[in-house]
């Protein structure tokens, strides 16, 4: 280790710190990704397509509140939601509903709301929870409406549309292997879990590397001079959320202690972070086209900034 300890990377990034953060994020995220893959396999086996289509509202917009409500009632983190959302789309769930659920789940899930309340208990907790949910709901509903106007071909990766795996270790599974087991349902289940897990895993590895690099090298005191500015505060909060890549259930505890940030800046952090960050930039690409991911990113950032600027000026 002594040799590695001496490594100093570019931009003040120390490789040992990067490796420690990277390993921690992978160990934290991979069990949830596996959990999502198992659920995804169960959905494929046990949830009939007709049932899903019968339950959901037929209008494009009517499904958006359903997607948002599902985010509260079927709470999943970003890592575990990815394989399930892909499976739900292939089961016939409208794209706008599935993606609204994907965006809503980390933001509206009960654990996120509870942790927000607890973290801000000495700083107007109900106001922070209410504003986080309110601003988040406005943005997610707007995004759901925008997604409902797009064609699936312009949003989804071709592999997600057809159900074929992404090329790679997971892709080779389908290409090089055929079922050879007397219980077809069980072998199908195992095949799906393996394929979903290995298809999303490269994006988790990419995302973890970026998150580890930013979270270890970014000096948090750098934002202090602008944290209370009406204009720059939300910009700093939003930027910080993109760099730190924290889980939505714990981000409140970290940001609550930032005395150098104003309330609108903290709100910007709490709203933008669960919807998008540099880890999610890669994870989203396991299902969505990169062009769409960029479009999603700037819309989320712009909407967050506009809402928090408006709140700050009032």
């Amino acid at each position, binding site marked *: 280790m002594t040799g590695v300890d001496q490594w100093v990377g570019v931009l003040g990034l120390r490789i040992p710190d990067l490796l*420690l953060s990277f390993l921690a994020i992978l160990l934290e995220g991979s069990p949830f990704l596996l959990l999502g893959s198992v659920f995804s396999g169960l959905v494929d086996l046990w949830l009939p397509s007709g049932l899903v289509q019968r339950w959901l509202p037929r209008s494009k917009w009517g499904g958006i509140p359903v997607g948002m409500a599902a985010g509260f009632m079927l709470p999943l983190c970003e890592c575990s939601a990815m394989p399930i959302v892909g499976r739900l789309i292939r089961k016939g769930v409208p794209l706008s509903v599935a993606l609204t659920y994907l965006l809503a789940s980390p933001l509206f899930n009960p654990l996120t709301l509870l942790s927000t309340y607890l*973290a801000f208990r000495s700083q107007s907790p109900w106001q922070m929870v209410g504003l986080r949910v309110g601003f988040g709901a406005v943005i997610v509903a707007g995004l759901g409406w925008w997604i409902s106007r797009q064609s699936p071909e312009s949003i989804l990766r071709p592999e997600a549309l057809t159900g074929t795996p992404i*090329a790679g270790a997971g892709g080779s599974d389908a290409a090089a292997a055929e079922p050879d087991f007397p219980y077809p349902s069980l072998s199908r289940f195992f095949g799906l879990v393996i394929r979903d897990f290995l298809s999303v895993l490269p994006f988790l590895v990419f995302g973890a590397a970026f998150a580890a690099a930013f979270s270890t090298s970014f*000096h948090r005191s750098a934002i202090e001079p602008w944290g209370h500015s009406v204009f720059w505060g939300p910009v700093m909060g939003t930027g910080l959320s993109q760099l730190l890549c924290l889980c939505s*259930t714990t981000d409140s505890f970290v940001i609550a202690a930032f*005395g150098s940030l104003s309330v609108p800046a903290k709100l910007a952090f709490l709203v933008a972070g669960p919807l998008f960050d540099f880890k999610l930039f890669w994870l989203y690409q396991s299902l969505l086209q990169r062009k769409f991911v960029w479009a999603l990113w700037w819309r989320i950032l712009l909407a967050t900034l506009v809402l928090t600027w408006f709140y700050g000026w009032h």
Partner: protein
Amino acid sequence: MAGTDRSTRADFYLPAFVLSAWGVTLLHTVVSGRLVTLIHPLFRPLVLVAGVLLLILSAAHLCFFRPSGAPLKNGWRSWAMPLLVSLFLTAPLLAAATYAPIGFSENALEARGLDSSSNPSDSAENDDDAKRLMHALEKLKPGEAIPIDLPDLATAATVPKLVQGLEGKNVRVSGQFHPIDASSFKVFRLLMFCCAADAVPLSVTIEGAPGQELKGTDWVEVEGPVHFVKDESKGEDALFPRIEPKMVKRIETPADPYVY
């Protein structure tokens, strides 16, 4: 299996290889105790379950499937791409598991706010902690030092009754050493919310010299009277604990270096 020569499709084995590598790495962190320095206790059982499940999946891939007899469509690229992806999925994980240190460098800790005077919130347990501290204060014999965790001390600074009760009393804290200048230093613990990547330093300023040569991040125990003061430079009402050191001694690194 069904008369197919497995060697004709080497890429058949790659998913099993990747799943095994991940499963073994996850289980190794559990068995070796390394997981304690990486993940919050709440999530540790998930790592164990995931490690076992990944090994089961790897075995299932080898047992429940057989190599396809289909000819390779794109020549060497058919196996080179999966091989590269498999290496990408395993090499960084194995490198990190092998070379990642136990704790962060001082540079990383400073970047995470070790130099800041404010502490991260741990208010989830405020009420319980406050009650426990009040109880300990009531039982305190004259002249006795109160052993107190840094999260409890940070909590105490937000509860007026505790500030009043602890002001001027002897306390004993332990944590890692961080130098400020010749006449003061900090003692900090890392507060973990989910995993090591989101851990932030929770510190108390010690108004006095350590009295011995210490390196940054050395583990120390400090005893002395505590005072709660406002940080005038910040213009905030919040109180911050300060300890006058009567005794500073180096201690062994604890089995679990984090607080939660």
